[in-house]
């Protein structure tokens, strides 16, 4: 996993966000076993307490569950993963729309731009999601 | 923990002292052969052999000096580099007391001084060794002690033990003067070595002054003390030895306290 952190938000909340994204996008498969807190902390180059705090928050949200003896796993409830995916998508759209509105585009114009973009890039086969 | 400190101190010093002593003993065998050559009736017939023999004899002299000087330099250097320079960061954060550190250094240095003296003596004997000399030597020692007892009315065995004790005391006191001076000088922020040398001079002069003061006191009134006159030569000898050991014990204790206080309260690693 690649970890990237910005300066203006707590590390643990950035870990939570990146883990949610990885789970929603399937980088972490449903039911996949997570490595130990220490290993993940070393990989991300963060304090183990920070990693612990992030995982505890994911656990509270139900995206991750822990089994006393064998460690932590990604949830197997696909409905919950799907819901997370939708939430993230909504956030992306929201911030995209805000940016476009700031540029002065109306919702209708935005739809046109997206359509044109898809046609253009789709023809070149460049659009990768 | 003192045992472990001593073990590691030996490990650090033996790598220098053992090869040096070994080399000295090896050279003493060479010197032995050389002396046979120089002293043999056909000396002067082979100039090459004579030159080699002379070189071996010079080497032998240099070797004796080297071992002797090295044991003193090593004593000073170990204290300084191991405790007062960078390695001190490790030594003073070990779970041991400052006393343990000082004692381990004194004990190991004293052992090396004795080993040096023994090695030089052994080398000296080796260099002049002939089979008949060994017998002579053993005979000489066997006769010397009773002769000493007879002539001076001194118990020879006791005298030898006292002399050995005095050597050990002297070695320990010498270590402690150096340690006290080094630890005093290195407690300052700058000119650590210069101030160590000055402290050494001050301490040595102070000790000399006090010892001569006491000696004067003793001569001026001591000799006339009634009990002294009742002592025979043997008693006077033991009294002198006892006094020497007592004086060294006191001065050793003073320098020990100076060293310990410096290391505990004034430690100033760079």
């Amino acid at each position, binding site marked *: 996993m690649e970890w990237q*952190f910005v*300066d*203006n*938000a*707590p*590390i*643990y909340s950035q870990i939570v966000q990146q883990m949610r994204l990885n789970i929603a996008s399937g980088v972490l498969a449903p039911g996949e076993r997570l490595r130990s807190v*220490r290993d993940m*902390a*070393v990989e*991300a*180059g*963060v*304090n*183990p*307490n*920070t990693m612990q*705090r992030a995982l505890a928050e994911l656990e509270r949200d139900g995206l991750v569950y822990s089994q006393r003896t064998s460690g932590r796993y990604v949830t197997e409830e696909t409905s919950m993963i799907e819901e997370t995916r939708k939430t993230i998508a909504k956030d992306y759209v929201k911030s995209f729309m805000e940016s476009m509105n700031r540029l002065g585009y109306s919702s209708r114009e935005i739809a046109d731009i997206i359509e044109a973009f898809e046609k253009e890039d789709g023809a070149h086969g460049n659009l990768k999601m | *923990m003192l045992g*472990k400190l001593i*073990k*590691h101190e030996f*490990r*650090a010093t033996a*790598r220098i002292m053992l090869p040096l002593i070994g080399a000295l003993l090896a050279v003493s065998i060479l010197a032995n052969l050389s002396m046979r050559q120089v002293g043999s009736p056909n000396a002067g017939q082979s100039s090459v052999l004579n030159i080699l023999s002379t070189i071996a004899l010079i080497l032998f002299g240099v070797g004796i000096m080297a071992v002797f000087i090295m044991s003193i330099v090593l004593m000073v250097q170990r204290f300084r580099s*191991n405790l007062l320079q*960078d*390695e*001190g*960061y*490790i030594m*003073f*954060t*070990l*779970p*041991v*007391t400052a006393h343990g550190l000082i004692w381990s250094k004194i004990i190991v240095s004293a052992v090396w001084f004795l080993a040096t003296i023994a090695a030089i003596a052994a080398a000296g004997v080796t260099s002049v060794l002939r089979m008949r000399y060994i017998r002579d030597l053993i005979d000489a020692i066997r006769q010397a002690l009773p002769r000493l007892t007879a002539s001076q009315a001194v118990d020879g065995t006791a005298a030898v033990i006292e002399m050995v004790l005095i050597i050990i005391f002297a070695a320990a006191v010498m270590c402690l003067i150096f340690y006290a001076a080094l630890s005093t000088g290195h407690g300052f*922020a700058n000119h650590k070595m210069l101030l160590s040398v000055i402290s050494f001079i001050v301490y040595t002069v102070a000790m000399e002054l006090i010892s001569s003061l006491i000696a004067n006191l003793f001569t001026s009134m001591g000799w006339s003390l009634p009990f002294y006159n009742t002592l025979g030569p043997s008693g006077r000898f033991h009294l002198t030895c006892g006094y020497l050991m007592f004086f060294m014990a006191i001065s050793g204790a003073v320098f020990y306290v100076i060293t310990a206080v410096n290391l*505990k*309260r004034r*430690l100033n*690693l760079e």
Partner: protein
Amino acid sequence: MAILKCNELTKQYGSVCALDHISLTIEPGRIVGLLGPNGSGKTTLIKLANGLLTPSSGEILINGDKPGVESKRFISYLPDRTCIATWMTVKQLMDFYMDFYGDFDVDAARQMLSRLGIDEKQRVRQMSKGTREKVQLILVMSRKAGLYLLDEPIGGVDPATRDYILNTIIGNYNPEASVIISTHLIADVENVLDDVIFINCGQIVLTSSVDDIRENNGKSVDALFREVFKC
């Protein structure tokens, strides 16, 4: 019990005050950054905790004890310079640590050394400066100590070594123990810290958790540090 506690701790060198009535407490399980410009009193504080210096006034307690044999058993200390004897081999160094520290985990040390490809028979003298630093760090981190005092562990090392050092610190983390890292290179360490202590001219300027700083100020510890210590 607090791992480290200072009450009105003061250290004067002659008339210069290196630490001025400092009071602070460090709890178990924390990785704490002791941050300040050069000459701010970081090393003095660490030396007082180690018993390498004695306080002018006030007190410092390590796991409830004044600095002494007990506290030295409890603390694993990385000085701000390489101090391991250069004539020794790695094996002799490990013997030395094993003899004096009951908590020295020789297997952990061997594992870390072999990962770096350092031969146990190698003498310190034959090593590069960077390798010496790593060997010293491995010895310090191989102890299962209660308090690790790391004085400038990443000063003057290349980025790869810095990552190695920080990973070693995180990888040896133990929830019962605390780590104090003193440094002025904040950006490099801030992701591994729980708490920070800003120190300047012998006084504590700020103590906070890293999360709080980012949450409340919306900026990194490094950015805040630059603001606080602006020249």
